[in-house]
Structure formats: C-alpha cells, structure tokens
C-alpha cells in the first residue's frame, strides 16, 4: 500500500497548493488579456493525459525501463501500469495550471 499512500499524499499536496495559488491569484490583478483557466480545458487535458499515460506507461514497463516492488504497490493495474502511476498526470494537471495562473498574476498596486 506504500505507493498508493504516497500517490494520495502527493495528490493532496498538489490540490492544496493549487487551491492556495488560485486564491492568491484571484486577489491580485492579472495582466490585461489573461483569463484564468476554467475547469473545461483542465478536464479535457486530463482525459488526454490519462489516455497517453495508459498507452506509454505500458510501453515503457513492457520495454523493461523500470519495475515496481510488488510488496509496495496495491496490485491494481491497467495492463502493466499500476493505477498509482496515473496520479502523476492527475496531480500535474491540477497543480501546473494553478502555478501558471499564480505566476501570471501581479500584486495589486
């Protein structure tokens, strides 16, 4: 269960940091012409990333690039890919756009 717990932990960290980043950015003025990213683009990107992950993670594991200690993973897999691997792109699509929004905002003068 170690990998599952680790994945859950980093997902929570990503969500918390993203929420804080959105909060701060909302209070600041953005440069003219930038809109915050709505949920629809994030959901679309997430679907694409999860599909890509399913395909390429399997290819990479089948190619022998890396393996997992059976004792530490939940054992749930999509093909060869442990479900915990899908937490990476999910965390990324939550965290990165939030950071991008924050870095594009300016402190109100």
């Amino acid at each position, binding site marked *: 269960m170690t990998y599952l717990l680790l994945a859950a932990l980093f997902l929570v960290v990503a969500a918390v940091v993203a929420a804080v980043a959105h909060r701060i950015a909302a209070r600041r003025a953005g440069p003219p012409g930038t809109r915050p990213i709505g949920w629809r683009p994030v959901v*679309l990107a997430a679907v694409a*990333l999860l599909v890509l992950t399913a395909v390429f993670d399997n290819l990479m594991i089948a190619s022998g*690039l*890396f393996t997992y200690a059976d004792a530490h993973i939940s054992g749930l897999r999509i093909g060869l890919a442990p479900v915990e691997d899908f937490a990476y*792109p999910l965390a*990324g699509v939550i965290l*990165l756009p939030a950071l991008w929004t924050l870095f594009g905002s300016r402190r109100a003068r």
Partner: protein
Amino acid sequence: MSFVYLAVLLVSAAGVLVVDRRFRLFVWDGPGRAAAVLVAGTAFFLAWDLAGIGLGVFLHGAGPYMTGLMLAPELPVEEIVFLAFLCELTMVLVLGAQRLLGRAAVREDGPR
C-alpha cells in the same frame, strides 16, 4: 549504453515544443513564467520519485534502452527529461484546450 529511450523522449519533447511555438501557447507565450512552472513542476515530481525510491517502490530496470547514467540510486538521467517533458505536455494540452474552447465559443456566438 543505449540512447533509444532518451532519443524518444527528446523527439517527443521537440514535437510538443513545435506545437507550443506554432500557437504561442506556453513557453512562447511567456518564457519566464513557463520556466518557473516547468522548474516547480519538475521539482514536485522529482520529490515524488525520490520518495518512492527511498521507500523501495521503484526499481530501475535492466532493459536495453537506457544510457545507464544515474543521477542517484534508481534515478536515471532520463527521468528528469521525462518529468520536464510531462510538465511541458500538460501545459500545452491545457492551454491548447483553452484556446480551442475559446474559438468554439466565439463561433457559437457568431459575428456581432
């Protein structure tokens, strides 16, 4: 020593960067801002990887496609390239989707 995996990663990254540049989505929209996101994102994923390695979850494979150059135990140099690529791909997909949805909305409204 093989450069196959690294080459596949770099070619994939180049493809995504071409799209980024063509549509001025991310790096070509604001390079400083993009660099900050890429560094922060890669550091986040790297911390995750290192935690997994430390806990004994991940094991570097003995397969024939990697350079064998290691940055740390069980951490090949290709992993940093992959993580940075994942961050770039994520932002290009998100900002690309935003651009496409914005265009679709404009078309629905029709000319004013």
